[in-house]
């Protein structure tokens, strides 16, 4: 069995970070995707030992799971299409979550 497929090495989710919504849903995304958000990037790589830095977990008390899942989809979407020359498809957003998504995007700086 080759070890080439192993991803997370040190730390619990070192290649992945866990984002927790207000209703305790846990979203695990690749660390490089989460860094699309300026706020998350600052939380994870800021100076000093912030708690999030140690456990790679961030709890968002105001963002519900509907919205946080959309945010995670956006991270993947952006990472996929940045530096891509293929035609970029639309990012679908249903009207009900638009308001909360804007608030979350503003907070997350992405």
């Amino acid at each position: 069995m080759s070890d080439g497929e192993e991803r997370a090495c040190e730390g619990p989710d070192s290649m992945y970070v866990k984002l927790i919504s207000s209703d305790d849903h846990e979203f695990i995304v690749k660390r490089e995707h989460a860094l699309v958000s300026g706020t998350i990037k600052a939380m994870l790589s800021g100076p000093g030992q912030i708690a999030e830095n140690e456990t790679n977990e961030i709890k968002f008390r105001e963002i519900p799971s509907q919205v946080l899942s959309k945010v995670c989809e956006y991270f993947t979407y952006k990472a996929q299409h940045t530096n891509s020359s293929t035609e970029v498809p639309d990012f679908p957003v249903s009207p009900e979550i638009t308001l909360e998504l804007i608030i979350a995007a503003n907070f997350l700086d992405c």
Partner: protein
Amino acid sequence: MDVFLMIRRHKTTIFTDAKESTTVYELKRIVEGILKRSPEDQRLYKDDQLLEDSKTLGDCGFTNQTARPQAPATVGLAFRVNDEMFEQLHVEAFSSPPELPDVMKPQDSGSTANEQAVQ
């Protein structure tokens, strides 16, 4: 081709991507790296259909068209409870969005409401 997946169990969702040629077993290894459960202790489902380790994601119906980054496909995950049994597949639904405020609801009667919002 890349396929984009949400692997979901109870209240946990893992966003990851893989190739159409990735096998179900390799996907379980990825889950192992994150959730620390060995592949033998995992079952992956597409809707309610149990997925076999040797099949590729493309074989199971995950393609570049059905599993896009902005609309990833959902894979269910269940863990082994003991030597005999696996837990039931159970995924917590996301929170329901709040009721739309009236101004945002689609208007049948034309654009008067929209004009007010713009001002």
